[in-house]
């Protein structure tokens, strides 16, 4: 063999023998990427049954830790200005756009879609972040207001976030559905503990990486993967969770969780048939808002009475 031939052969071997780099999917809790406390994983396969990756199988302790992280983040996030929250949500859209290729691939694998269809899903998800980013500083005008009262007072109603919201992401629409239920929760200042689609958790776990790099404070969104029923039960009964979105629960599970949630009077959003491609409306935002009404003297009371 000549030297030239040898080099060529060596190059060839080098190319074929490059080790594949598999991604370790991890949870996203409190701005960090831990494995499940239980050490468990489960196999995730694509729509044809081919193995894609191992995803962490969260336990109830992971759920508890996520609630602690969400509670810790709540004060800062709810206290941030609506304008600031809008900027942060827009930043998520920006980061997502940069990772478009990755998400198109993951969504195509997860949901068995063709590439163009998966691309349409990702585009819609990016647009969904932008849409909710625009709503952060407008929702108060729409559902709050100055109420007419018979007296020298201002009477103002303003929406306030509910607190920590447990979100069961839709099982079928693993990415657009996920974004469509998470964005409205955090847009108004709540923090979220999200249970990803059980069969297709990978886009949700990758979204955690996007959130971590887009100015969303750690703990505002926490993403858990695993058996939905196993993780949802302790969250529904958790005394420090203020609301639960049952989008990803089937009828039997939803019923059971709603009963558990009644104990500390959680707000419950029942599962409903939604076409996630449609413009969402503000229902998902108002579902997790409370109205605070304050009375304030107008200050225009003189000796001669009200100037009203």
């Amino acid at each position, binding site marked *: 063999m000549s030297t030239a031939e040898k080099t060529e052969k060596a190059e060839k071997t080098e190319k074929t023998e490059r080790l594949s780099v598999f991604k370790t999917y991890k949870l996203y809790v409190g701005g960090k990427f831990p494995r499940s406390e239980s050490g468990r994983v489960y196999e995730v396969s694509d729509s044809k049954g081919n193995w894609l990756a191992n995803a962490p199988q969260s336990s109830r302790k992971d759920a*508890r830790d996520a*609630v602690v992280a969400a509670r810790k983040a709540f004060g800062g996030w709810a206290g941030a200005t609506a304008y600031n929250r809008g900027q942060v949500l827009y930043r998520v859209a920006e980061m997502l756009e940069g990772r478009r290729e990755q998400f198109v691939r993951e969504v195509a694998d997860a949901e068995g879609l063709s590439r163009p269809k998966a691309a349409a899903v990702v585009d819609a998800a990016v647009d969904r972040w932008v849409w909710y980013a625009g709503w952060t500083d407008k929702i108060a005008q729409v559902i709050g207001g100055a109420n007419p009262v018979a007296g020298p007072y201002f009477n103002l109603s303003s929406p306030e976030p509910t607190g920590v919201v447990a979100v069961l992401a839709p099982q079928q629409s693993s990415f657009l559905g996920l974004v469509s239920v998470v964005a409205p929760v955090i847009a108004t200042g709540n923090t979220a503990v999200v249970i990803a689609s059980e069969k297709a958790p990978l886009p949700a776990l990758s979204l955690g990486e996007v959130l971590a790099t887009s100015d969303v404070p750690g703990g505002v969104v926490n993403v858990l993967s695993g058996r939905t029923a196993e993780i949802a039960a*302790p969250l529904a*009964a*958790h*005394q*420090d969770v203020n609301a639960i979105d049952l989008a990803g629960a089937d009828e039997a599970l939803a019923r059971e969780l709603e009963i558990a949630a009644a104990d500390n009077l959680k707000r419950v959003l029942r599962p409903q048939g939604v076409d996630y491609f449609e413009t969402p409306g503000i229902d998902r935002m108002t579902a997790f808002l409370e109205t605070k009404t304050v009375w304030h003297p107008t200050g225009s009371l003189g000796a001669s009475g009200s100037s009203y």
Partner: protein
Amino acid sequence: MPTTAPTAHALSDVTASDSTLSRFLHGLPGVDAVGLEARAASLGTRSIKTTAKAYAIDLAISMVDLTTLEGADTPGKVRALGAKAVHPDPTDRTTPTTAAVCVYPDMVAVAKEAVAGSGVKVASVATAFPAGRAALDVKLADVRDAVAAGADEIDMVIDRGAFLAGKYLKVYDEIVAVKEACGTSARLKVIFETGELSTYDNIRRASWVGMLAGADFIKTSTGKVAVNATPANTLLMLEAVRDFRAQTGTQVGVKPAGGIRTTKDAIKFLVLVNETAGEDWLDNHWFRFGASSLLNDLLMQRQKLATGRYSGPDYVTVD
């Protein structure tokens, strides 16, 4: 069980002079830092579940010295703390009371009134806490003040400056003087501020100085510096009290303070106690936690065990 000054016959010559004390302390075996930390870490991996956990939580609650040591302490806050010590969880009267409330000397009278009749003790820090940088007379006056106000326990700080300068006898004499000022009515806890002693060897030496001088308790820290109670330095002090009892027959208590915030941490400390000093110390007469936020976590865990649901900070008091 003896709670008064040690009858350390075997060790009586040790404190005869600065040089004998120094020779004794430096003759103590050196601490294997890596081994100590590894031992503390491995004991921290024990899994305590179900009924054992329930027992540990109740024991830990009964060992808490509920503490408020802020410049902003008001009589109202101390009264609230006292109420919490007596009924840590007002919704569940089977919850044990805490061991004591720990306050500054001028708040002792208020605290005493707040816990009257409940069996909860009132501990007071004294001796120019937390720095301890004052003349001995001032420190003793501080102690007498607290005792006169009715304190059941006095938490003194040692003179770390003298200790680090090698003047062990000065530290020793000061503890003896404070112990005397406590009289028979108050038990004395001696705070070493382990975070300022730099080395494990120093912590071991300080423990022995304290015990020789008649401490009823040795306590890790004030809670006012960066490094407070750690499993390793508490393990070291538990070894010291174990060895001291073996040599002299006198039992001395241990109190880790500062930085213990979760039930998990507290249970780790209890495992250390059981495995190092032994069951005799698993009692609030001999082991305490100096903490404030720990109690809330213990109560939340207790509620979780009772109801099966995770509890939240909305269901315990904000202190």
